[in-house]
C-alpha cells in the first residue's frame, strides 16, 4: 500500500525515488504550512499604479517610485508621514505627506560668515578672539555641518559681532541658521552655539523658556553677538554631519536610530536619529562595490558580490567591520530580507542567511548550486513574510516559497498571471503585495487556485493497485496515476473521502500520483484492497 500523509514540498536536489513518502516532485500553487495541502489563493488587485512604477511604499497613503528605490519611514515620528529613500542608481531624498521630494541631506555651507564689529571700546586687550561658523537648519529641525570658518576677530569689551554673507544654499527648506564660535579652554578650543541676540548680550528665549539658538533666515541681519565666553554652554554636535554621498543607495533603517546606506565601495551610517547626516567618520570601505545591505536586529550587514561583512559595535563611530564570508556575496539587492534570525540574500550558490555567526547557505539541501544558478537569481526579489521567504523573479511570473522553519521539506512553486515587477510587505497589516505593471495586487487572498502536487516515485512493484482514496475537505480533486513513468489513468473528479476502485492493468514497479485540486486535502492512499484504505 502507498500512503501519503502530511504532504510536503519539493527537493529538486534529490532523485525523486529517494524522497520520503510525503515529499514531492512537484508542489505547485500549494500551501503546506498546516500539514495538509491547500491551494494557494489568487491575487487580488488593490491599487492602480502608473505603468512605470517599480517600487511602492505605504505610509499613510501609497507612494510610487519609478525605480527600485530603498524607502524607509522616518525614525522620528513627527506625525506628518515623513519618509526617506534612495534611488536605485543613487541619490537620497526625503519628503512628507503631500510634499515634493527634497534632497536627503542638508548642504553644508561652504564659506564662513563675514563679520562686522559693532559698538566701541576703549580697552587695550581683547576679551576674546573668535572664529565663527554657521549651520543651516531646515523646517524639520535638521542641521547641516558647519560652514568654513570666518576669519579671526578680536572683540573688546563693549563690542559685538554682526553677521553677513550667510547663504541658505537656495533651499526653501532651510529656514534658520545656527551660529557657533570658538571658545578657548585649558586644553584647546571648541565650537559652542551662540544664542540669538538682537541686542548684544541679551539672550532671546522661546515660548518654552528655552534659549533660542535657531535664527530665522530673515532675522540674521539683526543678530548681534555680544556674549562672553562664559555665557556659552552648548557644544557643537554637527561638526562632521555631512550630506550623504550623492550616489548613496540601499538606504536601510537599522531600527536603533541609525540609517545605513552604500556608496561605491563604502558603507555609510547616519548620525544617531539623523537620517540626513552621514559623518565621514561613519564610513567604512569594503573590498569592492557594495551590492546590498541589511541588518540582524540592528547589527549591520553589508555585501559585495563576493563577500559578506558584519559590523560589530554599538555606535557607528566604533564599528569594527568583520568579513564573515569570502565566498558568499549578494547578487541581487532586491533579494535581501532583514530578519531577526539573519539577513537572507541570494548568493551565487544559493539562498543564504548572514548573522554574526557567519553565512549559511540555506538552500543547499534543496537545490544544488547548479540548479540554483539555473534560476534567474540576479533578478531574484525576496519577501520575508510569515516566517517564509517568498522568492519572485523580476520580469517573470514564477516564484517559490521557502519555509525557514522546515527548509528541507517545504519548498513550493507558483506562477502568477503577470510578470512581477517588485514586491512589498506591509509591516503594519501583515500583507504581501505584488507590484505588476500598472497595478498592485495582494498575494494569496483571492479565490483558490488549482494546486498541483506530484508524489515521489514509489518503487514497490511489481504490484497491482486496485483501490484509491484521497482524504480532505469536502470537494474533489483530479487524480493522475503514473505507472513506470507512463500516465495510466485519471480520475477527473475524485470526491474526497471516498474510495475508488482502479481499473485493471495497474501492474508495475514504479508508481507516481499527481493531485490537482481546488480544495484542501490531507492524505491519500493506494492499495490492493478497499479495506486497506480505511487506514488512510
Amino acid at each position, binding site marked *: 500500500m502507498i500512503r501519503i500523509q502530511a504532504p510536503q514540498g519539493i527537493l529538486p536536489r534529490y532523485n525523486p525515488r529517494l524522497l520520503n513518502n510525503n515529499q514531492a516532485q512537484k508542489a505547485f500553487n500549494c500551501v503546506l504550512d498546516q500539514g495538509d495541502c491547500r491551494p494557494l489563493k489568487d491575487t487580488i488587485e488593490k491599487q492602480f499604479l502608473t505603468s512605470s512604477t517599480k517600487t511602492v511604499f505605504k505610509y499613510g497613503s501609497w507612494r510610487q517610485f519609478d525605480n527600485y528605490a530603498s524607502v524607509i519611514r522616518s525614525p522620528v515620528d513627527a506625525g506628518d508621514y515623513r519618509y526617506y529613500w534612495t534611488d536605485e542608481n543613487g541619490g537620497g531624498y526625503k519628503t512628507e505627506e503631500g510634499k515634493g521630494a527634497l534632497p536627503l541631506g542638508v548642504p553644508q555651507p561652504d564659506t564662513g560668515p563675514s563679520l562686522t564689529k559693532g559698538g566701541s571700546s576703549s580697552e587695550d586687550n581683547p576679551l576674546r578672539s573668535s572664529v565663527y561658523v554657521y549651520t543651516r537648519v531646515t523646517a524639520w529641525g535638521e542641521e547641516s555641518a558647519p560652514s568654513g*570658518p570666518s*576669519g579671526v576677530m578680536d572683540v573688546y569689551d563693549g563690542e559685538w559681532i554682526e553677521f553677513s554673507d550667510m547663504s541658505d544654499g537656495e533651499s526653501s527648506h532651510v529656514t534658520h541658521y545656527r551660529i557657533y564660535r570658538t571658545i578657548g579652554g585649558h586644553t584647546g*578650543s571648541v565650537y559652542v552655539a551662540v544664542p540669538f541676540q538682537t541686542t548684544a548680550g541679551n539672550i532671546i528665549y522661546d515660548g518654552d523658556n528655552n534659549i533660542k539658538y535657531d535664527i530665522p533666515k530673515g532675522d540674521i541681519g539683526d543678530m548681534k553677538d555680544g556674549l562672553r565666553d562664559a555665557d556659552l554652554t552648548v557644544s557643537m554636535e554637527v*561638526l562632521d554631519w555631512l550630506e550623504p554621498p550623492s550616489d548613496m543607495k540601499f538606504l536601510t533603517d537599522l531600527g536603533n536610530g541609525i540609517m545605513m546606506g552604500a556608496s561605491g565601495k563604502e558603507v555609510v551610517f547616519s548620525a544617531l536619529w539623523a537620517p540626513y547626516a552621514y559623518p*565621514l567618520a561613519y564610513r567604512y570601505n569594503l573590498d569592492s562595490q557594495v551590492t546590498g545591505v541589511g541588518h540582524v536586529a540592528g547589527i549591520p550587514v553589508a555585501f559585495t558580490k563576493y563577500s559578506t561583512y558584519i559590523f560589530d559595535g554599538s555606535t557607528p563611530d566604533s564599528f569594527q567591520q568583520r568579513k564573515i564570508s569570502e565566498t558568499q556575496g549578494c547578487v541581487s539587492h532586491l533579494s535581501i530580507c532583514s530578519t531577526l534570525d539573519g539577513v537572507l540574500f541570494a548568493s551565487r550558490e544559493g539562498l543564504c542567511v548572514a548573522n554574526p555567526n557567519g553565512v549559511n547557505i540555506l538552500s543547499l539541501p534543496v537545490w544544488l548550486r547548479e540548479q540554483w544558478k539555473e534560476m534567474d537569481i540576479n533578478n531574484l526579489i525576496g519577501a520575508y513574510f510569515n516566517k517564509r521567504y517568498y522568492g519572485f523573479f523580476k520580469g517573470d511570473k514564477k516564484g517559490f516559497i521557502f519555509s525557514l522553519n522546515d527548509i528541507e521539506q517545504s519548498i513550493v512553486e507558483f506562477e502568477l498571471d503577470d510578470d512581477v515587477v517588485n514586491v512589498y510587505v506591509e509591516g503594519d497589516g501583515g500583507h504581501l503585495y505584488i507590484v505588476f505593471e500598472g497595478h498592485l495586487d495582494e498575494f494569496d487572498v483571492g479565490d483558490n487556485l488549482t494546486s498541483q502536487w506530484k508524489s515521489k516515485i514509489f518503487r514497490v512493484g511489481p504490484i497491482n493497485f486496485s483501490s484509491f482514496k484521497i482524504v480532505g475537505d469536502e470537494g474533489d480533486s483530479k487524480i493522475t496515476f503514473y505507472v513506470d513513468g507512463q500516465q495510466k489513468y485519471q480520475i477527473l473528479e475524485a470526491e474526497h473521502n471516498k474510495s475508488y476502485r482502479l481499473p485493471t492493468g495497474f501492474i508495475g514497479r514504479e508508481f507516481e500520483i499527481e493531485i490537482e485540486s481546488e480544495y484542501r486535502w490531507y492524505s491519500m492512499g493506494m492499495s490492493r484492497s478497499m479495506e486497506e484504505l480505511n487506514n488512510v
Partner: protein
Amino acid sequence: MSRRTLPAVTSPNFPEKVKEIIEIREGIRGSRMNGFVTFKDLEEHDPLRNQPPGPLVIQGDPPAAPSNLQIQAGILGNTLKWDESSSKDVWYYEIWVANSQNRSEAELIAIVSHPNTKYVHSLDSGSVNDDHYYWIRAVNWSGLYSSWEPPDAQGGYLVEGSTSYSEMTSEILGVLQDRIVELNEDHFVENPYGVYNNTFYIALEGEEENHVFPFIVGEIEGVPTVGINGQLVVDGSIYADAIAADQITGAHIAANSIEASHIQAGAIEVGYDEITGDKPPVDADKTSADNVQSVISQVDIDNAKANGQTLISGGYINTDILQVDYGIIVGNKPPSDADNTSTVIGGGFVTTGWIADSSSNPNLRVDFNNATIEINNSDGLKILNDGHIQFNSNTYGQTGRIGEHAFGGMYIRSWHGSIQLSPNSDRSQTDPFRQVTIRGSIKLPTSTFDNIYTIGVPSAAWKNVYSHDFTTVTHVPDMENQQKALDYLKNIKNWRKKNGQIDHAQHYACVQHDEKDEKTGEVKTYYGISLGKRCAGMEKMIYELNEEVKDLKNKLIKR
C-alpha cells in the same frame, strides 16, 4: 573641503601635537580630514610653547593683495567693492578704517569671507561727517597677509565726510526729484527694453520692431488705471476689491460679490451675500427676482441672513433640488415645480401668502415620490386654515398591519409631539384617513379625548382603527354612558374568559360613533371598546367586539 589647511610649522613633534589639538578641539575621532586649528590654538598649545627655542616659522607665500578697491559713499554707509585676490588659498579679507592716512591708527572693523568682495561700512550720525580712509588686505589659510590695497604708495582710500547731514539729505532728495521728472519723458534704457512715460516695451526675438507692450498706464474717469495688453496669467491667487469682466471662467471663483447679467456654472456657492438680477441662478441666501430659474441641478442655501431666516421672495423657482438649512420665507409665488424627487426642505419654516382656490391648484404643492418626510422638531406638523392632508389612492406602501409602519410611508416618530386632527367640513373627501396605524403609544389628554372619532360607515371605521398598546384612558368626562361602556367591557372580558379566549384587553379605550338605524332612520350613539396589547388577528377583533357590545347592550336593554 580643501579650504582648510594647517599652517606649515617646523617642529619635530608638530604633527602629533596638531593631531592632539584637533582631537580635543573637534571632539571627534576617526576621520579628521575636515578638522582645523586656529593660530590661537597653536599659540596656546605645546607646539609653540614647548618646542625647542626658535620662532614659529610659517612657510609659503603670502597671498596676492585684492585690487581695484572702489568705494561708493552713501548716507547710511560707504559701500566697498574690490576685485578678489588672485591667490587660490585666500581665506578672508580684512577691512581697516581710520580717520587719517596714518594706518597705525586704523581699526579692523570687519572681515569678509572669501570669495565675497563687497562690504558696507555703516555710518552713524556721529561719524557721517568724518573723513574715512580705508585699507583692505587678504589673509590666506596659512595665516599670511597680503600687501595692502590701496598700496602704501597710494595711501588709504579717502571718503570725505559730508558737511552736514541735512545738506546731504537735501542733495539726495534733489537727485530723486530729478529722477521723477525724467520719468515723465520717454526713455530707451537699452535693448531689449524701452520705457515710455506711460508704458514700456519688451523686444521679442526676431525683427527689431517686434515689440510687445504688456501694459499701459493712464486714467479712466479720473481713476489711475493700468491696462493689460493681452492676457494676464497668474499662477497664484488674485486679490482685488472688485473684478469687472465680460467673462470669468474658472474651476473655482470665490468673491464677496459677483454681479453679472448671466452666470452659468456647475455649482455656485454663496455665503452671506445675495445674488440679484432678472434671472439669477438660485444659490443665495436671498434672491429677489420675478423668475428664478436655476440652471444648476441643486440649490444649496447654507446660511440664513442676519435675522436667522433665508429669504427667497417674489420669484418662481425651478430647480431639481432646493435645500435650505435654516428657513425659507416664500412670497407671492412659492417654490414649486420641484420636479426632482429629492427636494429637501430641512428644518425650516415655510409660509405663503397666496391662497389657492382649488385643490387642483394648490398654493404649495410638493410631490414626494417614494420619499420620506421627517419632522424632527417639537412643534410637529401643523395644517392650518382648515387645511387637510390628502393621501391619494396611489399613495401606497405598507398596508397598516399591526406592528408595522403604515400608511404608505407616513411614519411619525416623536416622543413629545402630537397629532391634532380638526373636523373636516369637506365631506366630499371620501375616506379620509382610511387607515391609521400607530406604532407605539398615543397619549390622549383628557381635554382632547373627544377629538378622536370616526366618520363614515361605523363598521368600516371600527375596522380601521388599530392599536397594539393603548395607554389606559383614565378619564372620559363627557361620555355620559361611560360607566355603561365599562360595564360592557367587564362583561366582554368575562365572556372571553369563559369561552377560553385569552384576554388581551389589559388596556382599553372608549370610543363613540353615531350610527343611523336603517329601519327607523334614528341616529344613535354607540360606545365602543378598543382593546390594546399585541394581539395577532386583531384585524377583526375590534369589529367583533363592537358587535358583542351591541349584542350585550341589546341584551341588557331587553333585561
